[in-house]
């Protein structure tokens, strides 16, 4: 009963967000230019880097292109601005309206993300994927579809949870935009958006293995390609997805704890 009511709420919020953003399709459709152009730069860079060599850090040229192709798609699927949104609500005082609702704000934000990214599936993800396959000839076939899909779904959740925690800093800081931007940049670097984490020095790889960021991009991308390795540790696809699920569960618990601490701290007009 409770579950069906919650799922109805999520569907309603998600659908409203979907319709709202469908009015700004061109905003999302800019990815059809941005994604392939950035990918083209990667093609030239790695073509030059692989000149006269078969593999680099255990990845062949084709695998490297697949890595960046899949990482781009995962970025589009799990893209999130819960942090920005929450900080804006807290700073402007509009969070008051959410504090009064019989629904936790994190669930509302998650439902919004589901609606927003559903639209992105056919405006951004699918067209860019087709461009990668037919224009750049990238192998976008997952090595094992089930673990790959599961891993991308977990990445979706992990990105939301991490960003939401960043957004929660607004309850403690007057103007948290600087913190947010610094953190998000470090998150992208540590998630393997710019380069596979296996290129990092050993000591950094060991640290990154225990941080939540690799579960957003690096791990799902490697699971998609079919081989996971970081800090000298090789995991089977099942082990990798299991590790990711455990990390998401820990992050969810942390987010809930932080959320309740933030609500205790929140002050607004009339609250």
């Amino acid at each position: 009963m409770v579950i069906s009511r919650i799922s109805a709420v999520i569907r309603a919020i998600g659908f409203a967000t979907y319709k709202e953003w469908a009015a700004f399709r061109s905003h999302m459709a800019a990815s059809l230019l941005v994604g392939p152009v950035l990918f083209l730069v990667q093609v030239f860079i790695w073509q030059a880097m692989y000149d006269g060599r078969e593999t680099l850090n255990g990845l062949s040229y084709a695998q490297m292109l697949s890595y960046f192709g899949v990482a781009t798609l995962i970025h589009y699927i799990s893209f999130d601005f819960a942090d920005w949104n929450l900080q804006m609500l807290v700073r402007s005082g509009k969070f008051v309206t959410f504090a009064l609702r019989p629904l936790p704000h994190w669930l509302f934000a998650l439902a919004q993300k589901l609606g927003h990214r559903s639209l992105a599936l056919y405006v951004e993800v699918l067209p860019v994927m087709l461009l990668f396959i037919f224009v750049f000839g990238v192998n976008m076939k997952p090595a094992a579809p089930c673990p790959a899909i599961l891993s991308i779904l977990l990445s979706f959740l992990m990105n939301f949870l991490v960003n939401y925690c960043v957004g929660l800093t607004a309850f403690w800081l007057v103007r948290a935009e600087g913190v947010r931007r610094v953190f998000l940049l470090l998150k992208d670097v540590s998630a393997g958006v710019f380069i596979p984490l296996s290129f990092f020095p050993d000591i950094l790889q060991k640290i990154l293995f225990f941080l939540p960021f690799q579960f957003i991009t690096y791990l799902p991308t490697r699971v998609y390609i079919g081989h996971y390795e970081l800090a000298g540790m090789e995991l089977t696809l099942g082990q990798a997805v299991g590790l990711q699920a455990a990390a998401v569960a820990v992050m969810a618990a942390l987010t809930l704890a932080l959320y309740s601490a933030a609500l205790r701290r929140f002050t607004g007009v009339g609250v």
Partner: protein
Amino acid sequence: MRGIALCLAAVMRTKLAEQMAYRSHFALSVLLLVIGDLVVPFVTLLVYNAGASFPGWTLHEALLVQAVFTLAKGIAFPFFFGMVGTTLSQVREGTFDLLLLRPRPVMMMAILTGFDPDDFGRLISGSVLFGVALSGLSIPSGFAWLQFVLLFIASIAILCAVSLFLSGMLFRWVGSSRVFDIFDAVTRFGMYPGTIYSKSVQNLLTYVLPVGLIAFVPATALLGRSGWGTLWALLPAAGILLLGGLFWNRMLRGYTSAGG
């Protein structure tokens, strides 16, 4: 000219005072820009450490291209690029009308109100990177420095033109923050040695979309790899700046404000 300088001084004072109201935010923003600008050089360093390289380019030479790119942004962004953000928000909110009412050219006012002190952080990262890159290279000749300075001015002119194009687009494509992503994507080509691209792409990046002139051509001049002939590159830079100005004014005429 004196009027422009007075306006600029007044805007700089106001913007700095505004930033000082949130000092920690200002410090973090500068830090972010420093870190952000060092990401691509960091990736280049990791790749070179893995044993790969851009053919014909040592690590310090490749870093020099990225340093010049960052330095150019360190000058162009605080002074010109802010107009993209202000046009984006002011056109959407309808407050752009206020610029039309002021007794100064609209383009000048758009550039001045976009002045952003945060972006001077890029000068820090650019200078550090430039120093690191030069430390691994032989000292450039006076001729190379002269060429570099001229081409660096062209580089800033191109970034100014790009600001005008992006800002102009926003009169029609109201409220789209994706112009920043488009800028990042297109200029990404300019952050790497031009020789990694095919000949046709190199020509495209020099004469049609001259992002290669932002960093690669000035860096090549500083490395002493080009002769006086390279200075022909100043022409496309001047051309695109002129086009940018014309485009911006043309798009401004299409600005409909809130009343349509």
